[in-house]
């Protein structure tokens, strides 16, 4: 039997930001490097390549995941949303707009990960207080120190969402 090689191509299908991609990939390619180096989706950032900083956070089947820790071939069939897939046409996702309004970034490098993580956090529905937001966002490091503004942005969107839910009820 031939020795399996990291360069033996494996066919997989991924849906990324609503677009179906039929790919043939070496198994040693991480989801992060697939996005950045092969698909031109450089919005997802590489800050450590070790799962320690959160800059590469994407949503896989709705859950926030560090893309640097995922081998792409292991997620055959997955539905992936990156920062490029959050806006609808020209209309920003409410959290993207809130990040601009609250100046929740400076250099912008951790920002896509913070925003994807924030969207994931809101979908999880466990964060009800500012302390819970801070705790549950702690996997995303911001060296520029925009933490208070990031918490403001997330708090703002959660408050507006629950206000509009209440209004609808």
């Amino acid at each position, binding site marked *: 039997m031939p020795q399996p090689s990291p360069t033996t191509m494996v066919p997989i299908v991924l849906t990324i930001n609503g677009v179906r991609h039929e790919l043939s990939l070496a198994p040693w390619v991480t989801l992060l490097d697939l996005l950045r180096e092969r698909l031109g989706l450089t919005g997802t950032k590489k800050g450590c390549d*070790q799962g320690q900083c959160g800059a590469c956070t994407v949503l896989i089947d709705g859950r926030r995941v560090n893309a640097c820790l995922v081998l792409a071939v292991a997620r055959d069939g997955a539905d992936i949303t990156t920062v490029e897939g959050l806006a609808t046409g020209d209309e920003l996702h409410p959290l993207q707009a809130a990040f601009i309004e609250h100046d929740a970034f400076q250099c912008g490098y951790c920002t896509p990960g913070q925003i994807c993580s924030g969207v994931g956090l809101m979908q999880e529905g466990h964060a009800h207080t500012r302390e819970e937001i801070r705790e549950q966002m702690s996997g995303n490091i911001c060296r*520029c120190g925009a933490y208070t503004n990031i918490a403001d942005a997330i708090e703002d969107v959660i408050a507006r969402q629950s206000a509009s839910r209440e209004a609808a009820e």
Partner: protein
Amino acid sequence: MEALQSNIAHIGKPTSRVDGKLKVTGRARYAAEYPAADLLHGVIVSATVPAGRITKLELDRARAVPGVVQIFTHENRGKAAWLDRKWRDEVAPPGHPFRPLHSDRILFDGQPIALVVADSFEAARDAASLVRAEYDIDDFCTELEVRRPEAYDPPEKRSGIPPPPEPRGDAEDAFDRAKHRISSEYRINAEHHNPMELFGTTCVFEGPGQLTIYEKTQGSQNSQGYVTSVFGLRSKNVRVINHYVGGAFGAALRPQQQLFFAVMASLELKRSVRVTLTRSQMFYIGYRPDTYHAIALAADNKGRLTSIMHDAVAATSHHEDYQEAVVNWSGMMYHCDNVKLSYALAKLNTATPCDMRAPGASVGVNAFECAIDELCHDVGIDPLEFRRINFASIDENTGKMLTSKALLECYQQGAAAIGWDRRPVKPRSLKDGRELVGLGMATGMWDAFLMKAAAEAKLTADGRLEVSTAASDIGTGTWTILAQIGADALGLPLEAITSRIGDSTLPASPVEGGSWTAASNGSAVMAACEAIKATLFKHARAMTNSPVAQAEYDDVVFAGGRIALKNDLARSLSFAEVMHAADLAEITETGKAAPSLLQMRKYISYTHSAVFAEVRVDEDLGVVRIPRIVCAAAAGRIINPKTARSQILGGVVMGIGMALHEEAMTDHRLGKIMNHSLAEYHVPAHADIADIEVIFVDETDEKVSPLGVKGLGEIGIVGTAAAVANAIFNATGRRVRDFPITLDKLLA
């Protein structure tokens, strides 16, 4: 400035970043994100010993990895300059710049010893992991305490860094005779910048000797000069672009390893090459050096300072004498007639340290402001009152007058915001549940520089203005504030302005550092816009039946894309009418900013701040929480309160890191940093940061820069760690003099 005052619509207004949309949608491209045809990927192999010689490099297994194109080592390095001086960049300290792959000699752990180039990142990474090196290890030392007895006064001073002032009065005698005195030693451990973006360079090979380089740098022109000098390339053939920079904090002031390697490989292989450092490798490109501070202070019964002595020793490498202004601040923060300061270096087998946010001041002021707190305790005086009593109204180091100093307002407003009057006078006397509660404060100070910079402004007949200068935006807001300045100068809406920065082909700019970009590049943009106005006015007067034909320049205003008479705003001309009449499709003018040497003989400028912290310390576990910090800053004119506030927030957060978290841990038996990852080198995370309030006190300063701007990049960190440490003392009665203040030290 006159035009601005009558016409301010954007300066001083909290304005969202003009690059915000690109950053929140992931479309802002950083250095390692530019595509290139047939791109090769380079991965650096790092040395694993701190000193010695490479005796053998085992490359066969690496070469055998499919996709590997070339492996560069000191034995086959591409052509590069021999002479030391060719490797010196704009901000290099005295000494011998590090030359990658120059020889078999190892100068520091983590030194690059090979570059593996392959057609995929994965192949290069895998092959790099298979390179084996053998070494002859020399004696080495990475421990500052051991080398401290051999500390020396650096023979050649680093350009731009003032050495400590000459002693004044008799500090020793005053100390000996004083009623109240303290003598302490502080240590601040080495820190690493760790910007979020990995250092990366994409070098696009455009043809022989012709390169477009996308580079992580705080100065496109500094990198461009380095590349042309090291590789002997023609200036016009090398263009460096740094539109977006994913944080830097000083680490990208000097050209880093990846630039050399990407360019060298690109020239040798005649292909485009991308090289990105790993997070671990970023611990070997410069750091905030460890420092020791021996501080002795004395005061009289009324709390007046009578003696200040501050002797600092800082680490540097064997190959360069890296220097900072560490102790100078101690001679000018307060009034004191007897002052003696010294600063010495000790050589370690490490990479050369490099400027990190408020280099010098963040450590020197931190130690000094903690020592001041000790003295206040000894005298039995409120630390805020002590600082008011000892207020210095001039720079006592140089005898120069200050262009402004609204520090007393910072004290007053900051104290009110934190609720200073609830500070327990007696340490360890306030408890809330399991937690000891305390308040502390410190003064902060940083230079307000104006540097030489140039800019160009281009007005087109459609009413759009483009302002350009080779400045950088490392998260500071440069894109946005230059647009605000352009808009107000010509009375145009913000949407009509395009900033162009981050490109070595633009008008000359210094590196972005020292908090000088807003003042320097902003003033240059302002000057270029003023020149456009003068040209417009000249053409407007020359028009037939011109409403401004008889007017002087001072009689008109520029607003809403029109030139109008001040006294009769209805009588006006649109820019388009003027340009059409003069048959001009566009007007392009240049502007410059430079410090006034005449003024500098009498005056000097600083930014000031007062930082107040509330801490809560778990009495049993020693866990420190900081529920609230207030930073009140006096920084002249604030162009954009929104981005300015973020600058201060960032400085305060990094100051919290210095106080509680950040520390490079070296195993001195191996000469190696052990915690070279973000998991083990803790930088503040969301959970560490609670409430931070930023106050900008009013400060008008017509001398500091043409715009009245002082700069904000560094001031937020200065004093923050001391305010936290002083609050910890107030809460616990424990004075920890070794930073960061981790819980083991509090419980010891």
